């Protein structure tokens, strides 16, 4: 189905299901319980999961497949956001024109930056992309103030033209009248679920983005990109010009980033220069590596993980900790709270950093590799119980690791 093998179709359907059910799956704890703050099923965070998922999926097409590590992809994120806000200002709050234009503008921008940066490889390529992104960031902050509104950030003012705005048009981002920030809430037992328009809009686009990346992974083009990562010498002596391949991958990933940036502005009609800062470029690198570079699901998992940490762990303060450990004797309670304190709240970066190091050292394939190892553990238990008739995997040639999962 959809031009996919039956295995990939099943995989895609699982992803679709998980994405659509996210508002329910991420609310495992009843409202008002002490664990409710671990619930992630609120619109703002779920939107980030989907948007940064898209960002990381696109980044993975460049970094995961070709091995070219860009440290400047946040520039495209910013370009996407500015484009969408400009369309709000000129046309109106319908997100569609802005998103389409965001993809086009970021593609052109990526073509320019990619064309120059891809003249070098390895660390020099990374530095070039970083330099471009920092340049864009500084320009957005200062010289380009008429376009970016500098420090304040770009936003819609009441005297903006908004020529397509009708009498009854919504006054916040919407898609043909479906207002992004509106939600339907329902309660089942003690559980509260929020189905947000904005999230579902992002989710549908994320599914499309994932499907496209799946097609690219299975295409001859995707295979060429993996070949570039492995051996460019052989690539060239096989009659292939690696430059247009890497440039195409760079532009595609730039378009994904522009789309993600556009969606950020579609959820919240603001665009600021800090979105282009190098920390934002670094974040998508972490997401991709944490989840598993070069795998299909990895970047999405990595994006979800990091955004979860950023939003949930950062909210655990000492008051919350004291409430949790209130059952302990007072002295012990203080000690435990003091021990945990550096790792939560403002210290969430520390926990994430440790986690990142553990993954890179023990699971070079990222979280996806962790999942595969666990799955293999279960499978090998099953084959053992299959008795002497079961074939022993160790005595067969080692199959290549599949890029799926």
């Amino acid at each position, binding site marked *: 189905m959809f031009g996919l093998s039956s295995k990939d179709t099943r995989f895609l359907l699982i992803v679709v299901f998980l994405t659509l059910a996210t508002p329910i799956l991420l609310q495992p704890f009843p409202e008002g319980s002490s664990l409710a703050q671990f619930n992630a099923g609120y619109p703002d965070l779920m939107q980030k999961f989907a948007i940064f998922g898209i960002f990381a999926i696109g980044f993975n097409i460049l970094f995961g497949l070709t091995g070219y590590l860009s440290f400047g992809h946040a520039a495209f994120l910013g370009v996407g956001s500015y484009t969408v806000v400009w369309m709000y200002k000129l046309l109106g709050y319908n997100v569609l024109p802005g998103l389409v234009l965001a993809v086009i503008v970021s593609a052109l921008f990526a073509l320019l930056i990619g064309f120059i940066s891809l003249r070098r490889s390895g660390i020099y390529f990374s530095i070039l992309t970083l330099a471009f992104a920092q340049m864009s960031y500084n320009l957005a902050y200062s010289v380009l103030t008429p376009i970016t509104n500098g420090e304040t950030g770009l936003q819609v003012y009441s005297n903006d033209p908004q020529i397509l705005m009708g009498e009854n048009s919504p006054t916040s981002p919407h898609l043909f009248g479906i207002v992004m920030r509106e939600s339907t809430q329902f309660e089942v037992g003690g559980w509260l679920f929020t189905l947000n328009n904005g999230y579902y809009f992002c989710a549908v686009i994320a599914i499309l983005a994932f499907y496209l990346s799946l097609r690219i992974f299975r295409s001859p083009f995707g295979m060429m990109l993996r070949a570039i990562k492995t051996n460019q010498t052989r690539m060239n002596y096989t009659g292939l010009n690696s430059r*247009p391949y890497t440039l195409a991958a760079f532009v595609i990933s730039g378009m994904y980033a522009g789309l993600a940036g556009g969606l950020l502005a579609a959820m919240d009609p603001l665009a600021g220069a800090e979105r282009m800062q190098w920390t934002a470029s670094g974040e998508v690198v972490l997401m991709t590596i944490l989840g598993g570079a070069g795998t299909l699901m990895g970047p999405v998992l990595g994006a979800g993980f990091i955004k979860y940490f950023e939003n949930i762990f950062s909210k655990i303060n000492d008051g919350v900790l004291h409430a949790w450990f209130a059952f302990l004797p007072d002295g012990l309670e203080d000690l435990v709270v003091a021990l945990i304190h550096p790792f939560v709240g403002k210290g969430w970066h520390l926990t994430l950093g440790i986690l990142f190091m553990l993954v890179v050292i023990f699971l070079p394939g990222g979280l996806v590799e962790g999942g595969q190892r666990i799955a293999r553990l279960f499978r090998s238990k099953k084959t053992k119980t299959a008795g002497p008739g079961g074939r022993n995997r160790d005595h067969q*040639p080692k199959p290549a690791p599949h890029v799926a999962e």
Partner: protein
Amino acid sequence: MGILEVKGVNKRFGGLQALGDVNLSVAENTVHAIIGPNGAGKSTLLNCLVGKLIPDTGSVMFDGQSVLGRKPHEINQMGISRVFQTPEIFGDLTVLENVLIPCFAKRDGAFRMHAFETVAHERDIVAKATQMLDDVNMADKKDMHAASLSRGDKRRLEMAMCLVQEPKLLLLDEPTAGMARADTNNTIDLLREIKEKRDITMAIIEHDMHVVFSLADRITVLAQGTPLVEDIPEKIKGHPKVQEAYLGQAHG
């Protein structure tokens, strides 16, 4: 006129004359060996043929066209495939994918944006690559990680990757260098098999003249960057100049 015509090629590295007035003609459907002691300039000559180096003077014509100034991928698209001294393969890809890539390169050219096609749906190409692997007795290893192959199998795979492109000229740079005796013999057998089964033009660069003796139709002996003699293998063996170039080197 041969399919490959090298005329008056010179190449200097600083003060060192690596190639001095090299003339060479490789006739179609023959196996031409270029032998010579270490440092004779064999690899330099080969690099001048595939676009890695540009000669200081002279011309290199392939199939009636000059290759000078062209990039390696353009020269490959003209019909020259190359086997490296140490096998260059796509280690992270499967054995089958390694052979698929040259098939796509041959059919679609140096670049094509085939992002919405599916490899598995390209039945003709998959069939061709599978057949090629069968021909070199590697069909059972097609799903293996290419990096996990033995050295001999890597060489075999690299040959398959070149042969599947049906090149007009196959260049081999010391295909048995650093190999154990058994692997060397296997490689020679493979080359002989290729020669018998296909109409192919090969230029083999070799240090050890015994490797190419039974294989080559013609042999050129290169010493200090200049061709000494060119003849059929039988005449080369006892040639006094060759004895001098090789033995003089070996004993001196």
